[in-house]
């Protein structure tokens, strides 16, 4: 199936000479949730701005559902709903008026039933007649999502959707995103919260200094780069790791009651069997053990550091 968004060789140089994007190539599949990760200033927002028509590309091209974003901007843009990072809302309009305005702006005929559904899904229905200025930050964020959904887009961009949103609300937003995906909407989100990408995304892209340094299925990524850690609780305290176990690079905890062992799940031999054997031979008795998969955060930090 052809990708719903196709970015090829996209570069952006600002007037100051700063190269924000350097030859980006990226395909987004229909119906997926794609998480774009990257440190501040990596180019996430610039990339989204160009795709949505807010900034001009310096080089390269972008097609949305086969429509070029410059030549065929009407068809391209009408497929997209954008929720930018900053809380940009009107102040004195009512929630209902601003969301209806967005629908009109995107050329769609009035449909109060749809607006009602969007507001209800985002728990904004009882606020529909309130002026936006009276709403809390989390509600304003949801108003912006409602505006983006008002014209029934096939693609939704969420730029840092849960920045500054409390845990409860964040979970609620994830729920909304999942429902949208189930209804066939493609979702691209940028985030600082790696747990968010880990929780939500089907695929993950990492951007750093204007370049995509990795695009991978989340599961593959976790597996491929996933280091695991084995923690062994000891029955009696150790002052030092026995010399015979030096080859395992064990790390002794401060209280001397636990050792940790790092191993690679993609290797043929994890070394666990021999470690356990050697421990028994050295007279070390184990009371408990657990293993931990390294999180996406660890993977991300190590990736960005490498560059």
């Amino acid at each position: 199936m052809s990708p719903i968004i196709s970015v090829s060789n996209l570069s952006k140089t600002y007037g100051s000479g700063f190269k924000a994007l350097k030859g980006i190539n990226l395909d987004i599949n229909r119906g997926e949730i794609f998480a774009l990760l990257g440190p501040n200033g990596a180019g996430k927002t610039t990339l989204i701005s160009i795709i949505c028509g807010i900034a001009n590309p310096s080089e390269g091209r972008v097609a949305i559902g086969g429509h070029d974003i410059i030549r065929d901007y009407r068809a391209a843009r009408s497929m997209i709903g954008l929720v930018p990072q900053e809380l940009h809302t009107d102040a004195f309009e009512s929630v209902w008026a601003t969301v209806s305005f967005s629908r009109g702006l995107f050329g769609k005929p009035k449909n109060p039933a749809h607006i009602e559904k969007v507001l209800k899904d985002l728990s904004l229905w009882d606020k529909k007649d309130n002026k936006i200025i009276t709403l809390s930050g989390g509600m304003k964020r949801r108003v912006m999502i409602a505006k983006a959904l008002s014209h029934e887009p096939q693609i939704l961009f969420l730029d840092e959707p849960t920045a500054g949103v409390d845990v409860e609300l964040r979970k609620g937003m994830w729920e909304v995103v999942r429902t949208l995906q189930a209804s066939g909407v493609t979702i691209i989100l940028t985030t600082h919260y790696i747990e968010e990408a880990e929780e939500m995304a089907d695929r993950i892209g990492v951007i750093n200094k204007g370049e995509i340094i990795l695009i991978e299925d989340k599961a593959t990524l976790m597996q491929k780069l996933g280091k695991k850690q084995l923690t062994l609780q000891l029955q009696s305290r150790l002052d030092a790791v026995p010399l015979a176990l030096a080859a395992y690079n064990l790390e002794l905890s401060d209280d001397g009651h636990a050792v940790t062992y790092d191993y690679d799940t993609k290797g043929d031999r994890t070394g666990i069997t021999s470690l356990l054997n050697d421990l028994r031979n050295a007279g070390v008795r184990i009371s408990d053990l657990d293993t931990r998969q390294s999180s996406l955060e660890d993977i991300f930090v190590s990736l960005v550091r490498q560059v």
Partner: protein
Amino acid sequence: MNYRAIRAIYLFEMARTWRTLLQSIVSPVVSTSLYFVVFGAAIGSRITEVEGVSYGTFIVPGLVMLSVLTQSISNASFGIYFPKFAGTIYEILSAPISYFEIVIGYVGAAATKSIILGLIILATAGLFVPLHIQHPVWMLTFLVLTAVTFSLFGFIIGIWADGFEKLQMIPMLVVTPLTFLGGSFYSVNMLPSGWRTITLFNPVVYLISGFRWSFYEIADVSVGLSLGMTAGFLIACMVIVAWIFRTGYRLKN
């Protein structure tokens, strides 16, 4: 054409007008009434007649133009400046609409508002002096043309401005002096000949003169010239707006 988008922008802007009714409509009407009291009654009682019409009557077209000019500029400049300032412009830029449609929405609403205002002021003037309009169609033509032209001009200022100070600067330092020196309160023929020549470089003279002609058939310059100058200014503004959108000046990186 994305007519629904034009409609959405237009209605959104008009809603802003109704919400700020006091500032939009009432305050210009009050200040125009004050002009009538000061210029029409106090000074007018000493001037009595200009080119065959009473002074109070003579200043009506100028006063209407004064408000239409300044209100067109401030409506349109604020209308587009505010979304830039608040950041909500992102939505306009990401919507499937052409620049032309954006301009129709914003400028159309600003012009509509100042035309309504001009007519209200005209009605207010009717309370102070007897009004007779010789060429109502031409009167409306000049009114609409001026409102549209200066709304476009205001739109340009709103895009150019990157702070509230700049937003006020052009109207305060350029437009207000030109309007006061443009023959709102006097006939250019009343000036000494040297000043008269200088005045002819003031575009506002042509607007007011043409507008006054449609009322009383008296004019400082010929009506054709008035119409030509107004149209010329309109075209100049359109060219600048077209350039702004082609280059994305102050709107897009």
